[in-house]
């Protein structure tokens, strides 16, 4: 583990630190409040009050479960790209496009130079961190993913778009660091989609993070890792948060061929299944990981954000992984 960097930052974590990828399910009262706000039935202040209530619920729940590195649960976000697009001048919120089947989302459109005018996530990070003495991760979406999941009517190329967004996202990283965030996760789930563009993603993350005093994590999921490994290890982060369980731990075969040289937030529960995994299964997954990776390098978390599960399922999945991590730790 990059213990030295964490210790420099004043963070001491146990073996097998537990965390989660970012999002938790929104409680029913918040789902209703968001719908009411969209229909203009309640004010922004009333919605924010519910978002704060739900954030506090998840901070308390994570503490109760014994999680080591907390997240705010993203109670105030809808889509992971659209949220940032809504807060950055230069974007327009486009019309609905299909994600799959009967699911649709508003895909942002870059219509002019994207600018950072003020912090987007910092107040939420401060609020969440103010509720706990445990470290809370700063949570951002990376420049490559924001580029790939937006339409572009302004910049000349995908690379130019990504690098321009990287400069914007760096301002948010700086603001989080200034506020006191020591662990910052920058999600890049689109990274593995066009292997030939991996260097652009790396360049973007470098611009966003270089020289800044924080322990950086990136989350990548549901892609063709075989096409970008081991080159992806050149991403300038200390920790890769990877979906391992959904893909049957097949990444481990890649790690056997070419050693994984960073810390790994090891996804031990599948977020697309209602089934709460048995502790024995989760333990076996971690033991399989330990056959390839040094124990000091492993963090324990779910495959991906838990927002698509029910509140109860999310809690039980987290409870299971914490129990297994604690047992192995001891």
């Amino acid at each position: 583990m990059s213990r030295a960097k964490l210790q420099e930052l004043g963070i001491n974590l146990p073996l097998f630190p537990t965390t989660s990828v970012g999002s938790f399910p929104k409680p029913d009262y918040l789902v209703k409040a968001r719908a009411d706000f969209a229909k203009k039935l309640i004010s922004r202040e009333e919605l924010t009050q519910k978002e704060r209530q739900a954030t506090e619920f998840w901070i308390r729940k994570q503490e109760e479960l014994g999680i080591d590195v907390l997240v705010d649960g993203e109670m105030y976000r809808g889509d992971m790209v659209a949220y940032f697009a809504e807060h950055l001048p230069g974007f327009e919120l486009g019309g609905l496009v299909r994600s799959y089947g009967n699911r649709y989302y508003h895909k942002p459109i870059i219509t002019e130079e994207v600018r950072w005018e003020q912090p987007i996530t910092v107040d939420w990070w401060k609020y969440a961190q103010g509720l706990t003495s445990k470290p809370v991760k700063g949570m951002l979406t990376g420049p490559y993913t924001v580029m790939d999941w937006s339409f572009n009517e302004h910049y000349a190329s995908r690379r130019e778009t990504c690098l321009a967004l990287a400069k914007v996202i760096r301002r948010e990283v700086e603001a989080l660091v200034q506020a006191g965030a020591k662990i910052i996760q920058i999600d890049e789930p689109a990274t593995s989609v066009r292997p030939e563009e991996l260097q652009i993603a790396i360049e973007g993350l470098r611009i966003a993070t270089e020289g800044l005093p924080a322990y950086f994590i990136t989350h990548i999921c549901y892609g063709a890792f075989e096409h970008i490994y081991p080159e992806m290890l050149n991403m300038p982060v200390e920790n890769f948060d990877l979906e391992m369980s959904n893909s049957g731990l097949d990444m481990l075969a890649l790690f056997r061929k070419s050693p994984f040289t960073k810390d790994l937030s090891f996804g031990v529960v599948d977020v697309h299944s209602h089934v709460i995994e048995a502790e024995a299964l989760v333990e076996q997954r971690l033991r399989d990981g330990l056959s390839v990776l040094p124990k000091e390098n492993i963090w324990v978390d779910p495959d991906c954000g838990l927002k698509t599960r029910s509140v109860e399922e999310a809690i039980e999945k987290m409870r299971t992984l914490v129990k297994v991590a604690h047992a192995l730790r001891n």
Partner: protein
Amino acid sequence: MNLTTINHSSYPRIGDDPGQQVLRRTIAEWEKGAKSDADLRAAEERLSELALAEQIEAGLDVVTDGQVRWYDSISHLAGKLSGVRINGLLRFFDTNTYFRQPVVNARVERTRPLALDDFLFAKVKSSRPVKVVLTGPVTLARHSIEENGGAGGFEKLVEGYTEALAAEIAALAQAGAILVQIDEPSLLKNPEDLVIAGRALAVLVAAKGKAEILLALYFGDAAPLYDQLQNLPVDSLGLDFTYSPRLGEVISASGSAKTLALGFVDGRNTKLEDAGAVARQIETLARRLNATRLYLTSSCGLEYLPRDRARLKLRRLAAIKNEFLGGRT
């Protein structure tokens, strides 16, 4: 030189107006048991009619039914075949959209029409010729997995899908289809499949009757494969120009024995093309090819765009054609 504007394939099945959301609402209620199969069919037909009307209003020469009934490009067809069950979600190429993966556990067989009913509906509702779009056998096989021996391996699986699609094409031709598009985006990602694709396409072409078979390739750079694509036994070839800065030069240098469908309009980005600039590109290409006929289309289906932008792209296709014809009409 005849330039025909053709809708590529899919069209958004939702829009921001409430009337354009009838299918989403109906499917959601149908899934809960609150709407009947007849309600669902009516909503699909309503959206298909809307898609046809918008294409015709935009001035396209050849339209599609918008594929508004399709869950995705893979499971919609594969799921209608025996020997296949439909499994979980996977990412579709480099798009941020997902398809459900077919799991093949026996020989695949066509036991009912795949696209025939949709074609017959569109044909009645459209004042313009209707193109039928089918996902090709290699792309279907590349996106399937086999279990319990499945179809007997990849080549057998391609053969099974090919036979099923050939029967569909025969039925479509008999019903009056004049243009059938076979989508094979996987060939650009897996060029090693070109030989098996050639055999499969020969079977499909043998079933076409009087219909024309257009092979559509997208989501990748066709330039390195262009000469091999010219050897495939199809009547016409549709190409995505958004991935290929060299494609125009390659085509100019090699020529074309087939009618080309030029995917100059980006189906994945909202930015509208400069109609004059594209018209000049077509003029240059037409001159070098000495072509008598070309198709103009988008790089891929338009369902990746919001509806308002997709509609503008359709109009842009017509505008490019007008620019191209400027001075000639």
